[in-house]
Every structure is written in structure tokens, then in C-alpha cells.
């Protein structure tokens, strides 16, 4: 087995879904069954990526890189030979990610066969899924920021196409547009961040940039620019991973078909932001990390408070996704690299399961999404219920599930972070969210599956899903069990995933720009005295945070579950009365903190107003000046015409006229009679004498 084999297979993994897209798009009309090609294609891609993961992790400790010159500028003045490289890099993280993406993608393809049955654009749908998978895999295996950006935008496109898949509905096409535009806001920041790095390092390749940073070269020679670059690239993640304040697109994205929500808007694409952060983790300064941690904490808190009161099954899951993504971002910001990625993986499985489960319910309920119309479905749909429940236990952090492991590690990480840096707000947010998560998830389960059916008609028609839809649920819920990740159900540390597959890389930013616990060799003497290095200081803090974090999160999770049962199952607490007793808070949560309304009133109205104003300015002022000068030119020429006619020509004519007049007048005097002349002479003489009075 050679590296080039891995690279070749990875390239195949990347391009096979694109092939599927093209084939299904162009032949879909003629051969409606061609979508099966896409599904088979994805199965092949999945098998190949499992092979790549095993081979990579088993046989190649280092990362495998292949790159080529995409653009060659030749010998550029000032910089010498300049090329832009594209390429792929397979390391452990991307190898694992390949399997996660392709597994979920394949299962969603399966599920969609049943879910989308009867849709008028059935084959088109599968083509788009292929396009999405291709774009997502590009993000996973890129070895440089430019290609990351390229595929970043391409997942944006496929997300746009799939959110607005039912474009006859205005809400759907609105949501697609909103998703694309909100993401672009983040992308602009990311793009500028990339520009900062390129302007200084003249390469887009991660490894080359990091090598130069490690040798002490700072962007524009300043620490602030390095922090800025980190935060700006993070803006891309804020958009894609729906972080506050750009989270508003994700709940709306639920307008897309539910399997799409599972694949793109829960498990993979939205996690791309976190994946980006993992890729750039080593270049984040302490300031940048703090910004990231706070953003993640605020996001997870805001989203969780909104999820408490939503009544649309998909909206609850959407806000829960935002909240969990906030968790991961917060974890990266607080240095818990490993658990951020671990949670990304476990969350991908259980959240995909939850979404597909909700899809199963929605399908059975004839596109009813309001949980107030559901209830008692566990009898009708036992398999959906069981898988949904397992995933709910996982997201709530109940032991024996994968979610417990990753969430516990993640929260321990924030606790250690709070302990080491004094930023206690981060773990406080983290644990509060754990309480809320358990509560709203069980509220969802109870309202949907327990109790008595609220809409008997729809309940009567509900039925358990067929094999193609049930199989993915079973697989995904099985992956929400601890055993796949570690033999020890209460600690991930012993497991292969956390102990050997993924390792936190060494930061490349100057020592004094890192958090103290991430510094390595500045305090050598101190380290020698205490017999620990500073990265071990972090390990130590993690260890001591492990049990407090576990008990705290277990306690809070249990409390959340208990509250949900008290309110919705046993009705010991009247939830409506409780809501009314704090009506302003309830409304605030129900209306999603009025953030959409705020944006509409400010950014959107402002931009459109400015656009209208400038259009007026363009037509009245600028074009007014143009037309005005034309008018002026015409006016001047008319005036010159008039001047010409009346003054210049007038003078000419007047001269002519005058001489004529004189001629005419004086002709009268030339009568030819001597007597008349004599009279004139005498008359003139008298006049002259009167005038000059010589006497």
C-alpha cells in the first residue's frame, strides 16, 4: 500500500459524487430510475472512504498530501515565481470525516428513496444530493484555504438549491436566498482573512502558512493582524455553522426536504464551520480563541432558550443543532480541540438520526410538523420511537451513549478553561445549556410520541416507515452508543478515538500570544521545578475537571429530563400557566429573540432604502446633470442662434436696412428741380446761422 494509492482513491471519492450528479442531472428525464445509480455510487464512495480511513490510520502516521499548480503566474515582479496550488491532504481527522460524511450521505440517500417518493422532481433531488456530497468532500480533503473557500461556496450552492427545492413555495425560495446571503456575510470575513494570510505568506496551503508562522513571521509584522486573520476566517464558520448573530438562516432552512435537513443542516455542512476551525486551530491566538469561545457559548445559549418554546418539530431540532454547534465552537475556543471534533462526529450521527426520525414522523403524519397535533405515536411507530429516543438520550448526555462521552469531555474542557483562564462564563453557559437541552429534547419526545394522540384523523393514518427509511434510523441510532468510540462507557480517554486517532496539534503562534496553558517551552525552569510542562498543566486541569463536569452535567441533564416529564408527561406542572407567569420571557423565546425582525428593520430595510435613494440620485442628479448639460448645450446653441439671427444677422440686416432707409429718405431730396435745391440751401443756411450765431 502506497501513499499514491490513498491519494488516487481519495480523488475517486471526491469525484464519484460529481459524476453521479452529472449523470442523474442529464439523464434523469429519460431514465427516471437513474437515481439508483446515484445511490449505488454513494455506497461505493462509502466503502472506499472506509478503506481510506482504515488504511490511513492503520498504516500512515503522517498526513498524505498531493498538490498541483492550478495557476502559474510565471516570474512576477517583486515576488519571483508565483503559483497557486490546489491539492488534497488526508490526515486522521479528514479520514474520519470522510467516513462520517459519506456514511450519513449514503443513509440519507436511502431514506430519501422512500421519503421523496412521488415528488415531481425526484431525480433532480438525487442529483443535488450528489452535488452536495461532492462539495462537502472537497472541504474535507482540501490542503489549502483557497480550495476550502471554493468548496465552501459550492456547499452553499447545493444548500441553496436544496433548501429551495420546493421553490413553488415562497417561504422555501425565501429561505434558500436567506441562507445563501447570510452565509455570504460570513464568507466575506473569511475571504478577507484568507487575503491577509496570502498577502503575507504568498500561499494558500495550510502547512506552508503554518511553517512560516512558526518561524516567527507575523502578518504585516503585527500580532493584531494575526488575531484579526483568525477571527475573520472564523467569520466563515459563524455563517456556515450558524453561530450568533448569523444563525438566523438555519431554522428557515428547514423549508427544505427533511432528509436534506438531516444531511446538510444538521450533520455535515453546518459542521464544516467547526471543521474549518479545527483546520486553523494552530494559528489561533489567545484573543481569537476567546472571541470564538464566547461566540460559541452565546450561540448555544441563545439557541437553547429559543428551542424551549418552539412547536414545529423541525424548528426544535434546528435550534438544537445551532445550540450544539455553539458547543463545538465554544470547545475549539476553549482549547478542547479533541472534544470539539469528537462532538462533531457523535452529533452528526445522533442529530442525523433525530432529523430522519422527524422525517419519518412527518411522512407518516402527512406533512404535519406541529408537535401540538401529534402525541401517542410510539404505539404506531415503535421503531422510529426507539431510535429517536436513543438519539435523544445521546444529545441529552445520558451515560452509555456517544453524546455522553463527547459532551462530558467538551464540558470538562470548558471547565478546565474556566479554571485556567478565569473565564468562568464559558462553562456556566455550557452547563446551563446542558440543562435546557435535556429539557427541550424530552419535551419534544413526550409531545410527539407519548400521551394521547391530539389529531385522531392524522393518527389513524400514521404508519411505521418502510425498510429504506427505517434502516438508516437503526444504523444511526446504533452509532449513538458508546461502544464504537471507547470500551469504557464513562470516559472517552481510554478509547481509540480520543487517545490515538486524533491528537491536539501544537500551536504555531508565538508563545506570548497563546493562552498560558497552550504554551510549551517558555517557562522551562518552572516546568522543571514542578515536573510538568504547560501543556500537561492543561491535561491536569482536564483530569481534575472530569468528574465535577460529569456529575454536574449528569445532574443538570437529569433535572432537565425530570422537568420535561413533570410538565408534559405527568402534568404536575402546568406548562401553560408557567409560560404565562413569565410572559415577556416566553414571547421573547417564542419569537426567537426578535432577531429576524431586527435585521429586517435595520440591515435589509437600510440596504433597500439606500438602493432606492441611490437610484433616485442616479436618475435625478447624475443623469440630471448629463441631461442638464445637454439641455444647456442646446440652450446655448439656441441662444447663439437667436444672437446670430437677431444680433449678428440683425446688425448686418440693420446696416442694410439703415442704408436702404437713408437711401430712401434722401432720394426724396433729389427731385432734380433747381427751385427745391435752392429752398434746401436757404433752409440749411438759416439752420446753420441759428446754430452758430456768428453775429
Amino acid at each position, binding site marked *: 500500500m502506497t501513499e499514491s494509492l490513498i491519494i488516487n482513491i481519495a480523488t475517486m471519492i471526491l469525484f464519484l459524487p460529481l459524476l453521479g450528479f452529472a449523470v442523474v442531472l442529464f439523464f434523469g428525464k429519460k431514465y427516471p430510475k437513474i437515481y439508483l445509480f446515484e445511490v449505488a455510487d454513494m455506497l461505493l464512495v462509502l466503502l472506499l472512504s472506509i478503506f481510506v480511513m482504515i488504511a490511513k490510520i492503520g498504516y500512515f502516521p503522517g498526513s498524505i498530501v498531493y498538490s498541483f499548480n492550478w495557476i502559474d*503566474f510565471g516570474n512576477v515582479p517583486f515576488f519571483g515565481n508565483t503559483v497557486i496550488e490546489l491539492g488534497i491532504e488526508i490526515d486522521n481527522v479528514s479520514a474520519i470525516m470522510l467516513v462520517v460524511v459519506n456514511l450519513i450521505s449514503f443513509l440519507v440517500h436511502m431514506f430519501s428513496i422512500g421519503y421523496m417518493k412521488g415528488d415531481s422532481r425526484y431525480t433532480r433531488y438525487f442529483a443535488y444530493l450528489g452535488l452536495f456530497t461532492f462539495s462537502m468532500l472537497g472541504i474535507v480533503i482540501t490542503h489549502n484555504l483557497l480550495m476550502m*473557500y471554493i468548496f465552501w461556496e459550492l456547499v452553499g450552492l447545493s444548500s441553496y438549491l436544496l433548501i429551495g427545492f420546493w421553490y413553488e413555495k415562497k417561504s422555501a*425560495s425565501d429561505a*434558500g436566498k436567506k441562507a445563501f446571503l447570510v452565509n455570504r456575510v460570513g464568507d466575506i470575513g473569511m475571504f478577507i482573512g484568507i487575503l*491577509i494570510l496570502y*498577502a503575507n505568506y504568498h500561499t494558500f496551503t495550510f502547512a506552508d502558512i503554518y511553517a512560516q508562522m512558526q518561524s516567527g513571521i507575523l502578518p504585516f509584522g503585527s500580532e493584531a493582524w494575526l488575531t484579526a486573520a483568525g477571527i475573520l476566517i472564523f467569520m466563515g464558520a459563524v455563517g456556515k455553522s450558524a453561530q450568533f448573530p448569523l444563525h438566523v438562516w438555519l431554522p428557515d432552512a428547514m423549508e427544505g426536504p427533511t432528509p436534506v435537513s438531516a444531511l446538510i443542516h444538521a450533520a455535515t455542512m453546518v459542521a464544516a464551520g467547526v471543521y474549518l476551525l479545527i483546520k486553523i486551530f494552530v494559528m489561533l491566538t489567545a484573543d481569537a480563541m476567546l472571541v470564538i469561545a464566547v461566540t460559541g457559548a452565546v450561540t448555544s445559549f441563545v439557541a437553547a432558550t429559543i428551542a424551549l418554546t418552539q412547536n414545529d418539530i423541525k424548528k426544535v431540532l434546528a435550534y438544537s443543532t445551532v445550540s450544539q454547534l455553539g458547543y463545538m465552537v465554544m470547545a475549539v475556543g476553549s482549547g478542547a480541540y479533541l472534544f470539539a471534533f469528537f462532538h462533531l462526529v457523535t452529533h452528526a450521527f445522533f442529530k442525523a438520526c433525530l432529523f430522519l426520525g422527524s422525517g419519518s414522523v412527518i411522512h407518516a403524519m402527512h406533512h404535519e410538523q406541529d408537535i401540538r397535533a401529534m402525541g401517542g405515536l410510539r404505539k404506531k411507530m415503535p421503531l422510529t420511537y426507539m431510535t429517536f429516543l436513543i438519539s435523544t438520550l445521546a444529545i441529552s448526555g445520558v451515560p452509555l451513549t456517544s453524546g455522553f462521552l463527547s459532551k462530558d469531555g467538551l464540558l470538562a474542557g470548558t471547565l478546565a478553561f474556566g479554571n485556567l483562564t478565569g473565564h468562568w462564563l464559558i462553562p456556566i453557559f455550557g452547563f446551563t445549556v446542558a440543562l435546557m437541552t435535556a429539557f427541550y429534547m424530552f419535551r419534544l419526545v413526550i409531545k410527539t410520541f407519548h400521551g394521547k394522540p391530539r389529531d385522531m384523523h392524522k393518527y389513524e393514518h400514521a404508519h411505521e416507515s418502510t425498510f429504506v427509511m427505517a434502516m438508516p434510523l437503526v444504523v444511526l441510532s446504533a452509532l449513538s452508543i458508546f461502544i464504537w468510540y471507547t470500551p469504557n462507557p464513562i470516559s472517552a480517554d481510554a478509547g481509540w478515538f480520543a487517545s490515538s486517532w486524533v491528537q491536539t496539534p501544537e500551536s504555531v503562534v508565538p508563545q506570548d500570544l497563546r493562552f498560558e496553558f497552550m504554551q510549551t517551552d517558555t517557562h522551562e525552569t518552572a516546568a522543571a521545578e514542578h515536573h510538568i510542562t504547560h501543556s500537561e498543566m492543561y491535561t491536569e486541569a482536564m483530569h481534575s475537571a472530569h468528574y465535577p463536569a460529569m456529575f454536574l452535567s449528569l445532574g443538570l441533564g437529569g433535572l432537565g429530563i425530570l422537568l420535561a416529564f413533570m410538565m408534559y408527561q405527568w402534568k404536575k406542572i402546568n406548562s401553560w400557566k408557567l409560560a404565562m407567569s413569565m410572559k415577556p420571557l416566553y414571547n421573547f423565546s417564542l419569537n426567537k429573540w426578535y432577531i429576524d425582525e431586527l435585521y429586517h428593520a435595520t440591515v435589509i430595510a437600510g*440596504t433597500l432604502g439606500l438602493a432606492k435613494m*441611490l437610484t433616485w440620485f*442616479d436618475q435625478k442628479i447624475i*443623469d440630471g446633470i448629463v441631461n442638464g448639460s445637454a439641455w444647456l448645450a442646446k440652450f446655448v446653441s439656441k441662444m447663439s442662434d437667436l444672437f446670430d439671427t437677431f444680433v449678428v444677422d440683425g446688425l448686418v440686416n440693420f446696416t442694410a436696412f439703415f442704408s436702404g432707409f437713408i437711401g430712401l429718405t434722401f432720394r426724396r431730396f433729389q427731385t432734380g428741380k433747381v427751385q427745391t435745391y435752392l429752398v434746401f440751401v436757404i433752409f440749411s443756411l438759416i439752420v446753420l446761422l441759428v446754430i452758430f450765431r456768428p453775429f
Partner: protein
Amino acid sequence: MDGFPILSLLTFLPVLGMIIILFLPKEQSNTIKYTTLVITSLQVVFAVILLGNYNYGAGGIFEQSSFQFIEKFRWIEITGISWIGTVKVDYFMGVDGISVPMVLLTAIISFIATLSSWNIKSQLKGYFALFLLLDTGMMGVFVSLDFFLFYIFWELMLLPMYFLIGIWGGPRKEYAAIKFFIYTLFGSIFILLVMIGLYFSATETIASGERVFTFNMLALMDQTNYSPDGILSPFNPENMRLVAYIALFVGFAIKIPMFPFHTWLPDAHVEAPTPISVILAGVLLKMGTYGILRISYPMFPDITRDLMWYIALFGMVNIIYGALVALAQKDFKKLIAYSSISHMGYVLLGMASLSTTGIAGAVFQMFNHGTITAMLFLIVGVIYDRTHTRGINDFGGLANQMPVYTGFVTVAFFAAIGLPSLSGFVSEALVFVGAFGQESIRVLTMISTLGILLGAAYMLWTLQRIFFGTLPEKWNKLLDIDKREYAMFIPLTIIIIFLGIYPSAMLDIMNTSVNTLVDYVAVSFQNMQLSGF
């Protein structure tokens, strides 16, 4: 290819076609159309042959020996004029990496525009004769290396354009045509003045050994040819180079069009028939930016460097202003016209960077804007032909009625938005990379990135209003595109996708020349100045 006058052939082939058409009887409309089609197809073939024989390694810009396919002979020579001596004008043509993309673009767009002209109903003979004359004018501008010749082609293209808009245009055609004509002529006067100023400032040695005033662009770029007392000579301490530069820039800027000289464009586009809009957006606008790169930059490197920030500023204003005004348009064609203004701003911004990435991005953007915007105007034309309306809000739900058309629209719109894997992305990205690297215009560049958000906003909003939602009753008989329209869209789509994935195909043509230009403007000339020439 030695000695074969391929550039003259490319330039005057359409005139040949025009003559044939003038001899054809009016009634034979099909013969007239097919003659034009054959001529423009041949032009594409010759452009491809030119590309096939083009040496990618030669720089051009200021050095005659590294220009290719040169044709040079004395065109006008009058000796013994009192204080001037000999007046001579050369017929001087040649191409380098900056003109070849434009030659290709002109050939392709003329061909596509011919296909799009199939629907012209009235006075076919006159239309196609003028159309071909326009083609000659455009091609001539991009291959001329003598300022006098350049100016003739520049003006030559005005006349047919005036009639093509004024006769075959929409309801306000007279207003639009005269506005276009006078505005451009206004700019031409500035160019003419600077041309004469340059003429009397520099001399070159002719075969007889005599030093004579010259219109030769390459001689005008060589600062050693300037006499110390010439009004535009860098040696003259009281020179008027700054004023001349601005005048020349305004002359070219009107064509781009650059804010605030842009208002002729929306009017011209709205009134012009579809193929003329396609040519206007596809080729004509590039003549402005091409002129700046070909003439202003190498002839005035010192002033260019001084005014770099202002060029970037106007680029930024074009990007943002054009996009914001486009956002408020309700007429589909006007929206595309303003988006075109916005996208030409990227060209200005890239040029202002004075870096290889930025200028290569700018020239690439000129080509991409040519293909993408041409496609957008074709798209407007398709829907206007069928419905005779362009109001964005008159439509809705066309996606189900015209699925293939919608597919092409989606490609073109996303290309305009700058989606990676389509050509527009690469050029815009290179513009930003180049401009960001230049410290003095970094802030302007950062503001300009807002353009990619606004661009997405107006494009996606338009896509939604026209193609999504429910179909109004009255449009349920609209037909999807026919074979001829396929033939217009497919080549452009292929180019857009191909250059998005493999941009080197175009960038490699221009890289050597762009490097030469950057080196000449930013390095060599400065060294010359430092060493007192």
C-alpha cells in the same frame, strides 16, 4: 504564420462581408443572415488559429520585437511640411497577451450576437451591414499599435452603433442613441487631444534617419523619445502629463463606463436590440479598460502610480454603487446593465493594484465579464422576445414552464455572483488578491468585498422573482428555448465552466505580458527615473 496578415484578415473580414451584403438584394434575407454567420464563424476560426500560433512566452507591451503577428508599413507620409518636417502614420498592428484575450472575446461575442440577430425583422440588409462594420471597428481597436489607427477604429465603431440603437432600438431609441453617441464622442475629444499632445512631444527615427513626430504607441511609451520641451514630455518640468492623463482617463472611463460617467449605459442597453446589448456589454465596454492598460499605463507610468488610489476608489464606487442601484431596479435589462457597471468596477480595482495578480485578474475579468454579461443579456432577450415585457415583477414560476432556460439562467446568474467553479470567481478572486496585497488600496479593497454580497442579493432576488413561486396564468403557453437559442447559450456556458475549472487556459496567454507591464510600470520606469533616465 510568418508574413500572413492574420490581424488584418480578422479586422477586415467583416468589411468584406459588409460589401457582399450591400450587393445582395434586400429580399434575400436568409442569404444576408447566413453571410454574416459565415463571416463571424470564420472570424472565430481565425482567432483560434491565431491563438494556436501564439507564443505564450513573449511579453509585448512596449517592445516591438516581442509583439506577434506584426503588420507594419507606412500608411501616410507627407514630407516637407513647414515646421513639422515629415508627417507619417503607420499601419501598425500586432498582439500581445493583453490583446489576444480581447480578440478572442470579440470574435466569440460577434458570432453569438449574429445568432441572436436572427430575430431582427426590419431592414435586414442595413442591420447586418452595420453590424459587420461595428465588428471591424472593435477588432481594429484591439490589434492597433499605432495611436492614429487606434483612434480611427475607436471612432469607426461609434457610427454603426449609433444607427443600430437608433433604428432597431426600443421606444426611446433616439434619445438613447444620441446620448450614447454624444457621450462617447465627448470622451473621444479628450483622447484626440492627448493623442495630438503626445504626437508633438515625442519623435522616432525613421528609415531615412530623420527624427519625426510619431503616433507609434510603442515609440510613445519609450521615454527616451520625448523631447525636453514637449508638452507631455516627462523631461519638461512644466509638463501637462497629469492633466493629459486625467483627460485620457476620462475618455476611456466613459466607455467602461465609470461612475459618474455611466448613465448612458442603462439607457443604451434598455433601448438597444438584444444582439447590440450583447456586443455593447460583451466587447465595447472592454475597450475603455483595454485603452487604459494599452495606452495610459505604459505611456504614463509615473502618473499611473500617483493616481493608483483614485483608480481603486472609482473601482470601489463602481462595484458598490452599481450593485446597490441594481438592487432597486424593476426592469430586468436595466438590472443587468447596472450589474455590468458593478462588475466592471472589479476591472478597475484590479488594474489599480499594479500587481500581476490584480492586473491578470482585471484582464481575465474583462474576458469573463464579456462572456457572462453577454449571456445575461441573451437571457433577457429570450424572455423579452416571448413576452414583450421586462418587468421583473411581471413574472414568476418560470422554472417549471421553461426548465432548460432556467438551467442556463442559473449558470449565468451564479457566474455573475462569482460562484467558484465558474469563470467569474477566479477573476474576481485574483483582483481581490492583487488589490489586497497593495497596502495603499487595502481598505478600499476590503470595502469592495461587500460587492460580492450585494451581487448575490440582487441576482438571487431576481432569480426568485422571475423563476420561483407560481406562474401567472398568462405565461402558461411560453415555450422553452429552441435550437438556435441553445446554440447561443451552450458555447458561452462551456466557456464559463471551463475557465472556472481551468483558468490557466486564459491566464497563461496573458501572464507574460502582464508581468512585463507590471515590471514596466512599477519597476523599470521608476529605476529610469531614479537614474535620471
